[in-house]
């Protein structure tokens, strides 16, 4: 039962083949059994089972929502009423959210059960889950490697079948890169598609929540629940939300796939390149055609991102000051000392690094050279995509330049770590939807992700393209050894 997809479980629940309580118990047991993966920061079986019981009652009365009784893991960046919500940080180690994020509210309404809060890089700053105050997460495909980040806990949990699906958030690749490294189907929606209310902000103009699943079909089902305008998020977009499950089977004959030459150059691991080429060949068999496109400003994405994201983060994280909630240093002599000690003790090294970079970039005298310049680059990067989409319907390429790397391998070299998001970051800068889907494995048996990039609000097409591939391939069905 634990290897079933959300769609399959929903069917089993509605046919009363299993109850939500049984299902929830099953996954809670697996979470406990595989706790060495460290995929969860907080589990609260009582709370989860109460939710499952309520879902069973609703199913019994025939008034169940689309996800009635489905257990889901929530990234610990989403506030959920009554749940400790840490964002992977010590500074929120004692914070119990008193309200629900909009997407949590939507999942609750749909009848989903919260299995627990998944581990993540501290404040979503990281690509390996190693910056979490609650310890790193192991990749189920090779426990000596990282699951990627920042949504590493969600990735490991779904890959190891500790949860049928999970939520993630993606500021520079945090859904797609861990999905690629753990063989998942992860979708970062267009900026504004999913409400950010209740999602703890890292970089407000880039952050976007989305589903991390095993199939495109499941991702469509979850996105149906998550997407939509929210009056409490001024950056959410008032565009109609289609039923994403309805267009999955659409024919992709004649689909124009754009391959940016910049995504296949130096820095790309040759085994990853081979897997991607094979996947493209598969698409050709499905009737798609390939065109070469160019994203000439791609190489500027990382420097641009590492000015803008830290700049916004330096301001977003100011509220963690020890005054109203969260961690406060024990001994301090005055207000300034309280601020300094609280933040010095409460934040980890990577978060501090980004706060300092961001503070510097916004400082008087440097603002024009860094922040303003980066904003200009951001527009150029978006224009590149705009031009590319004149000659293609979807852009494809690798999600990550390498497969999962060893724990500790890059943790002392921030720049090497930043480069693992080289293909994903520009998508956030442009605000476009992006996906990563399982496309094969390298010689070590580590998964490779294929990235699909669509134009604005073209999630339905991305899911359709992903689903057609999954109908003719079986990469996404593989289970990591030891978790069968």
């Amino acid at each position, binding site marked *: 039962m634990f290897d079933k997809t959300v769609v399959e479980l929903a069917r089993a629940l509605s046919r009363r083949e299993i109850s939500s309580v049984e299902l929830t118990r099953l996954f809670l047991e697996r979470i406990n059994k595989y706790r060495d993966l460290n995929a969860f920061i907080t589990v609260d079986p009582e709370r989860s089972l109460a939710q499952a019981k309520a879902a069973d009652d609703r199913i019994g009365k025939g008034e169940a929502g689309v996800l009635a009784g489905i257990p889901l893991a929530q990234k610990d960046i989403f506030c959920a009423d009554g749940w400790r919500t840490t964002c992977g940080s010590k500074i929120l180690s004692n914070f119990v*959210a008193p309200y629900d994020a909009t997407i949590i509210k939507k999942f609750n309404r749909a009848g989903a059960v919260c299995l627990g809060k998944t581990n993540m890089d501290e404040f979503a700053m990281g690509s390996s889950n190693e910056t979490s105050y609650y310890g790193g997460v192991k990749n189920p495909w090779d426990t000596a490697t990282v699951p990627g980040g920042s949504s590493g806990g969600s990735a490991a949990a779904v890959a190891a079948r500790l949860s049928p699906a999970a939520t993630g958030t993606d500021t520079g690749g945090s859904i797609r890169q861990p999905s690629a490294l753990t063989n998942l189907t992860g979708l970062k929606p267009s900026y504004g598609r999913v409400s950010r*209310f*209740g999602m703890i902000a890292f*970089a*407000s103009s880039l952050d976007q929540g989305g589903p991390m699943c095993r199939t495109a079909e499941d991702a469509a089902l979850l996105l149906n629940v998550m997407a939509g305008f929210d009056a409490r998020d*001024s*950056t959410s977009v008032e565009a109609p939300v289609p039923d994403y499950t309805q267009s999955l089977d659409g024919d992709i004959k004649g689909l124009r796939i754009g391959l940016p030459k910049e995504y296949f150059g130096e820095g790309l691991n040759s085994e990853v390149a081979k897997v991607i080429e094979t996947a493209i060949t598969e698409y050709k068999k499905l009737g798609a055609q390939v065109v070469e496109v160019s994203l000439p400003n791609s190489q500027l994405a990382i420097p641009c991102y590492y000015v803008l994201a830290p700049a916004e983060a330096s301001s977003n994280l*100011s*509220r963690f000051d020890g005054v109203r909630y969260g961690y406060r240093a024990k001994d301090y002599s005055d*207000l300034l000392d309280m601020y300094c000690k609280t933040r010095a003790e409460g934040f980890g090294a990577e978060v501090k690094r980004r706060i300092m970079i961001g503070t510097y970039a916004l400082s008087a005298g440097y603002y024009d050279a860094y922040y303003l310049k980066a904003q200009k680059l951001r527009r150029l990067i978006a224009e590149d995509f705009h031009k590319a989409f004149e000659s293609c319907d979807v852009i494809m390429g690798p999600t990550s330049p390498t497969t999962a790397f060893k724990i500790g391998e890059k943790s002392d070299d921030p720049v090497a770590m930043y480069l693992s998001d080289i293909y994903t970051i520009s998508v956030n800068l442009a605000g476009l939807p992006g996906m990563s889907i399982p496309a094969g494995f390298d010689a070590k048996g580590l998964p490779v992700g294929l990235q699909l990039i669509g134009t604005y609000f073209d999630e339905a097409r991305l899911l359709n393209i992903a689903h057609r591939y999954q109908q003719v391939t079986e990469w996404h069905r593989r289970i990591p050894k030891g978790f069968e």
Partner: protein
Amino acid sequence: MDWETVIGLEVHTQLLTRSKAFSGASTKYGAEPNTQACAVDIALPGVLPVFNQEAARMAVKFGLAIGAQINHRSVFARKNYFYPDLPKGYQISQYELPIVSQGRLTIDADGAEKVIGITRAHLEEDAGKSLHEDFRGMTGIDLNRAGTPLLEIVSEPDLRSSKEAVAYLKKLHQLVVWLGICDGNMQEGSFRCDANVSIRPKGQAKFGTRAELKNINSFRFVEKAIEYEIERQIDLLEGGGTVVQETRLYDSDQDVTRSMRSKEEAMDYRYFPDPDLPPLVLDDALIEGVRATLTELPDAKRVRFMREYSLNRYDAGVLTSSREMADYFEKVVSESRAEPKIAANWIAVELSGFLNRDNKDITHSPVTATMMAGLLKRLADNTVSGKIAKDVLAAMWGGEGDADTVIDKRGLKQITDTGAIDKVIDDIIAKNSKQLEQYRAGKEALFGYFVGQVMKATQGKANPAQVNELLRKKLSP
């Protein structure tokens, strides 16, 4: 040396919206600490601001009233600094692109009109309050005020004296209250002022180094703080020193300004556009909609009062000091059909005397416009004299009812019956034969004595003109 003072003012006005600038919490003043602070106001992790459009309409109303440019696109920016009563660690404000720019306000400066430029007016949110009274050795934080919308109005450095600064402030205060966008309550902090003050040798074009005075929360303190600061700067410069650019705090107890932080210590607020809020875009429909709600403004009303009612500039100014005062005056004139000049005098002098004495606003006057009109009618038809009318007004103020009731109850109706007055005069003359003799011998000053006696005998109710006329006849030989 002759020094010239240069002053620019920054005024924070709390906008009278019902909910906060970026949350749905109430803006009502005086609630128990932290009972009007929602998740957004206390900056819980994950919350987001949603702009209250009503605040934009109020800012536009102000902009139109000062003939300013209304910017169709303005941008919210974050002003970053750490303080315990600033929950997010930044204040949402407007920086490079404010909602209103380039307006002007005309003030009375030494009897002449002077136009003061208004550089900009921008929207921002208020901070909470730190409560320094003892909380077991700690400081308390009240976030009820956090997120209350403010319009910060920045003047050009066009003011040349503390008197002008006060005149500008009063004019601005009158206007925002008139427009209904601010309650103007300075004690509760709804209208607060910072002053940039510098001096320069008369005739010099270049500005001197300025000091920014903070925390001046009454008209009187503005004047005193600026006066003190001017003296301090003159003393410094004439003593061979220099003025340093700094922020100074006014201490009203000691009547001094004290250095708070120097330019070197000035904070770098790291302004940048708030990524949680799209630019504020105003379409013509909104602006025109607001324009349609604009009624006659104080300056226009004053000019009309001068023209239409032949009032002098001073009286017209008093009568247009608030919309309620102006309405009161016009209602009295139309209901009493009294001479406007007389109505103006009774309101601006007599009624205002009572209002000031009891510290009451015209809206809370126990003498309504209809009651005042009733009194003026009795004055016009000679039921009472001007002197008696003052007594009637006092009685009305004291709650004895309208003019007719007071006149009736107190028997204050004027005696205009010639026969009755004749009788009193005859009686007085008979009792004062000695004075009559002296008067007839040429001591004309005694005429007043006889008038006084007659008025006394009639308890002031005899018509003074008739008394004069009849006495003159009877006293002549």
